[in-house]
């Protein structure tokens, strides 16, 4: 893997962290409860669902300054969100979500373009979100001054613009982690289903140990590290073996870690490793459109978290769901991923 691919991954790691810091600050400053209400649903709807179409547009119309547009939308959204008129908040959150979506797609496309066929740079980009989320969330709940948002917005703009050539490349490296005897449409459907169920599982993981602020920080740190390392391991030992660790090995730790932080965090770490696998599957099919490939995973993420807005289950039901969905994910990934080929660093 060349220095450029890692550098783009690192840049967009920080861009993603800054973006999520801004977004979750603005989400929590008015509405501190997790997943409460129509606001969160509206935000997630506009942040996750249109990404594929936005990415497709970016790939077909390369000349527009998408990085600046995304950051500007996030900046502009602060005004309606800060207003005392609650209806304007909704408008502001829609602007924020669209800005977020644009920058996500910039990150996905740029890191894939420079990746040389490795999934680690995109995984590194995605990992940044976990760190930014917990920082922004904490600042918002603590009602920190909104002036603090200037720093992540400037940093996001500088770093994303510095990688603008990567976003505008004419061709992309090929990913080939899928077997040739399965229809591409089935591969996309499997990747979509696996991402959806794992998005849902993410909210079913029992973490009653999580009571202190530092524990939340540690949890999200572990999550981000797992996502990055999943991409690293997929490049080294293959997507299939990484998927087995991420699906099966995680289960006992997730189930028995409800009151034990270390056990739970090991489970979350393993669980997070699978994130890059499904993205690599989509990239293996949609070789010329990494934007839509990423958009499939984000749409699946939204669908997976949608039920959580309407229904919550008890510990026993969640435990059964974690086991069943993990097994289903493992089986689906096992049949849809090719055997690994050893590769050089």
């Amino acid at each position, binding site marked *: 893997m060349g220095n450029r691919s890692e550098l783009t991954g690192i840049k967009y790691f920080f861009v993603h962290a800054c973006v999520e810091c801004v977004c979750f600050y603005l989400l929590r400053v008015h509405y501190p409860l997790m997943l409460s209400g129509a606001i969160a649903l509206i935000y997630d709807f506009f942040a996750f669902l249109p990404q594929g179409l936005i990415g497709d547009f970016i790939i077909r119309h390369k000349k527009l300054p998408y990085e600046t547009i995304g950051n500007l939308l996030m900046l502009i959204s602060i005004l309606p969100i800060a207003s005392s008129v609650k209806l304007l908040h909704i408008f502001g959150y829609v602007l924020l979500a669209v800005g977020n979506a644009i920058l996500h797609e910039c990150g996905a496309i740029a890191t894939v373009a420079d990746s*040389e066929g490795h999934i680690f740079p995109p995984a590194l980009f995605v990992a940044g979100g976990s760190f930014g989320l917990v920082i922004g969330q904490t600042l918002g709940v603590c009602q920190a001054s909104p002036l603090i948002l200037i720093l992540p917005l400037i940093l996001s703009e500088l770093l994303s613009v510095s990688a603008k050539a990567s976003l505008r490349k*004419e061709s*992309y490296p090929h990913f080939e982690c899928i077997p040739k005897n399965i229809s591409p449409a089935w591969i996309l459907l499997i990747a979509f289903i696996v991402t959806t169920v794992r998005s849902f599982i993410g909210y079913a993981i029992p973490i009653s140990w999580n009571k202190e602020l530092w524990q939340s920080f540690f949890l999200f740190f572990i999550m981000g590290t797992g996502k990055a390392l999943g991409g690293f391991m997929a490049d080294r030992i293959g997507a299939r073996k990484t998927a087995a660790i991420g699906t099966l090995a995680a289960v006992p730790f997730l189930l028995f870690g409800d009151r034990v932080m270390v056990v739970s965090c090991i489970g979350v770490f393993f669980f997070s490793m699978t994130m890059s696998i499904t993205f690599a599957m989509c990239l293996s099919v949609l070789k*010329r459109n990494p934007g839509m490939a990423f958009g499939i995973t984000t749409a699946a993420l939204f669908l997976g978290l949608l039920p959580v807005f309407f229904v919550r289950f008890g510990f026993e039901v969640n435990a059964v769901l974690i086991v069943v969905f993990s097994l289903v994910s493992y089986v689906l990934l096992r049949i849809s991923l090719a055997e690994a080929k050893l590769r050089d660093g």
Partner: protein
Amino acid sequence: MENYMLLDMGLGGLVMVAGGLAVIAFLLTGICLLAKSIGVIRRELKNEEAGADPGNDSDHDGKSV
């Protein structure tokens, strides 16, 4: 519900209708996004099958994950 005051003002029904329309608009937007995305995916799959852009094939770094 918090719209008791609105009900007293005779606006409760209006809020319900507006809320219902918002939900319908939401659902329709979601369906449109989904349909458009499926259209793009189908286009891309057809392009992949047809090998529509031979210029890309000579540029890629074929690697396996």
